[in-house]
């Protein structure tokens, strides 16, 4: 890789005090690798860095969903239907002792709805790293520890619902944790499939050109001119009703990525076209490198960063598609849990008006989509550290 000829200002640039330091600074820039330059540039984009942390946080949440959930996400309890969120009280008489008030439910004799009343005298202390339902951490280590929990003691009715419960009395917080796992991994797998399709087809199209290029470009054009949502709906409605959760999960992923690859293919093709005539590619070919070597050793590394950025920008669309499809009842179906499945409960305004906490699953959707967008923006700016 050639040395950068534009003096980029890295984020850590100290105040220019003397010519000696400026000299050292320039030296540092000259010897920095491409990835280092990109990192410096990326770091300057504060919002993108914060978004990156948020995204990492989301994936950690997906990994540790069982640990962060404190109740079995499928355990339903008619007695606790549509319970409002219980706020945590952190201090008790000036001492740090987090607790929630016990909630008593009763049926309103007039409306027949369940009403809940918190009882400030009956306090349920929250324990950290408490015992709970058994699970396997990361799918391997058997454990019963959860980040929080309550000391059940003899009274089995003592529980907490940080975000309230749904119609069937299932804990919304715990369901949200498991939903995060499915919604975010669907995006990840979907983006991987699109990436493979996009790089292979875009690469073929850009590297060889000619008939292959025309053909692939036509296919892309047609796919792009079909309205996506009807197409997704059609494909998703075609999934047999008796498939298992796992089958549906993979089918939905594939449906979403089938249309997602076109944008990536376009980026890859553009890169191939502009690189094909570059000196280093021509010389690689002239010294007798095989096609495979030319592509994977010389060309791909030089636009790797662009692909990463395009991939990040493709992720939020996948998350939204899954949410939208599941929301319509065409995507994942209960008992699978995803953000879209959770939001199905919020479809009806009357329900939402009475129990607004059912809309909480919209918050992670919005935050995740924004974080991915900002991160992708920052990566895209950083992807070309020699440009301005």
């Amino acid at each position, binding site marked *: 890789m050639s040395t950068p000829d534009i003096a980029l200002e890295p984020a850590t640039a100290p105040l220019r005090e003397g010519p000696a330091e400026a000299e050292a600074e320039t030296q540092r820039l000259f010897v920095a690798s491409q990835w280092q330059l990109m990192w410096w540039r990326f770091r300057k984009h504060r919002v993108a860095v914060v978004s990156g942390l948020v995204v990492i946080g989301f994936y950690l949440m997906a990994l540790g969903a069982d640990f962060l959930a404190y109740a079995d996400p499928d355990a339903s309890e008619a007695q606790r239907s549509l319970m409002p969120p219980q706020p945590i009280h952190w201090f008790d008489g000036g001492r740090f002792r987090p607790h929630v008030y016990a909630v008593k439910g009763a049926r309103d004799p007039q409306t027949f709805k369940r009403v809940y009343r918190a009882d400030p005298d009956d306090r349920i202390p929250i324990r950290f790293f408490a015992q709970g339902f058994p699970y396997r951490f990361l799918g391997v280590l058997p454990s019963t520890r959860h980040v929080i929990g309550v000391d059940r003691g003899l009274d089995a009715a003592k529980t907490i619902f940080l975000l309230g419960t749904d119609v069937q009395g299932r804990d919304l917080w715990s369901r949200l944790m498991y939903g995060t796992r499915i919604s975010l991994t669907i995006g990840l797998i979907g983006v991987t499939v699109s990436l493979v399709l996009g790089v292979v087809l875009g690469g073929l199209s850009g590297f060889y050109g000619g008939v292959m290029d025309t053909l692939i470009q036509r296919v892309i054009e047609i796919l792009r001119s079909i*309205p996506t949502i009807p197409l997704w709906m059609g494909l998703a409605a075609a999934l047999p009703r008796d498939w298992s959760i796992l089958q549906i999960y993979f089918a939905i992923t594939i449906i979403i990525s089938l249309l997602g690859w076109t944008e990536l293919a376009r980026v890859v093709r553009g890169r191939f076209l502009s690189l094909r005539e570059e000196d280093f590619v021509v010389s690689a070919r002239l010294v007798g490198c095989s096609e495979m070597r030319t592509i994977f050793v010389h060309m791909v590394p030089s636009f790797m960063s662009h692909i990463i950025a395009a991939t990040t920008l493709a992720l939020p669309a996948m998350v939204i598609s899954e949410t939208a499809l599941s929301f319509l009842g065409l995507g994942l179906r209960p008992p699978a849990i995803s953000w879209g499945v959770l939001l199905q409960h919020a479809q009806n305004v009357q329900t939402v008006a009475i129990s607004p906490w059912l809309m909480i699953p919209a918050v992670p959707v919005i935050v995740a989509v924004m974080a991915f967008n900002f991160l992708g923006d920052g990566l895209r700016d950083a992807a070309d550290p020699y440009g301005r």
Partner: protein
Amino acid sequence: MLGYIGRRFLLAIFTVWAISVLSFAIIQLPPGDYVTSYIAQMAAMGSVVTDEEAANLRIQYGLGQPIYVQYWKWMKLMVRGNFGMSMEWRRPVTEVIGERLWLTVVVSVAALLLTWTLALPIGIYSAVRQYSPGDYIATFIGFIGLAVPNFLLALVLLYLGFTLFNANIGGLFSTEFQDAPWSLAKTWDLAKHLPIPALVLGLAGTAQQIRIMRANLLDELRKPYVVTARSKGLSEARVILKYPVRVALNPFASTIGYTLPYIVSGSIIVSLVLGLPTVGPLLLKSLIAQDMFLAGTIVLMLGVMTVIGTLISDIVLVCIDPRIRLDES
């Protein structure tokens, strides 16, 4: 110019054909056919469809034939402007879609107009007053608009309307006009209901257009000719509106093609949430009931609208930007 349009037009026809094959194939994908889902539906209601009746239904709808024969028949009907019978509604497809299609177009166009009337001035303002509070607010709203899926926005607005004003802001008509024949009063009622769906559908597009307009105009404003114009003593409004804005408008034309289909297909989910009588909910129902002709016609129509949108934007772009020369030959 004419040759270019002609070539584009041929390509558009080819695309429409490809879409028709694809939509037919997709609708054929589910295991079973309309009769199977009809039997299941009847069974759920407690009545039984005999094998003989099922066989008769299949013959009536031509479901037993090979797929390519069915496609050919469908095509022949289509060319003659007959879109077939909706199996579920037992009425001609055109009749079932009828008014809904027009309402879809009305909602989409309203969203498009809203997008432009909001995006243009805001985009110009944020570029001219870069880094002003107004610019920051516009950018912030822009990002929110991009990140929030529109059906969630619809949900939030419905909720707010319900709790704050105790009114149902969904739908396109008040209850008294729901089934009333068209009249001036009904049109006015429609106009009063339009802003919310238009806003929900147009927000993401608006956000995007603001960003595009801002970026383009910023690029233009730095060019020497703007300085020249200013130094010659032109008024500030004239300096900005006369040339830079005109140049920055080009991408708007090129996005007409994307915006229209985007709004039409986005309106499907939003319509379900807001309870709009557009083709969206109809499509969902017909897909689930495997009502082949109805679903196929709707997907095809949406596809055709997209192709037309793209065609229009290509032509408009060539007309307004003389720098784009048709060097395809």
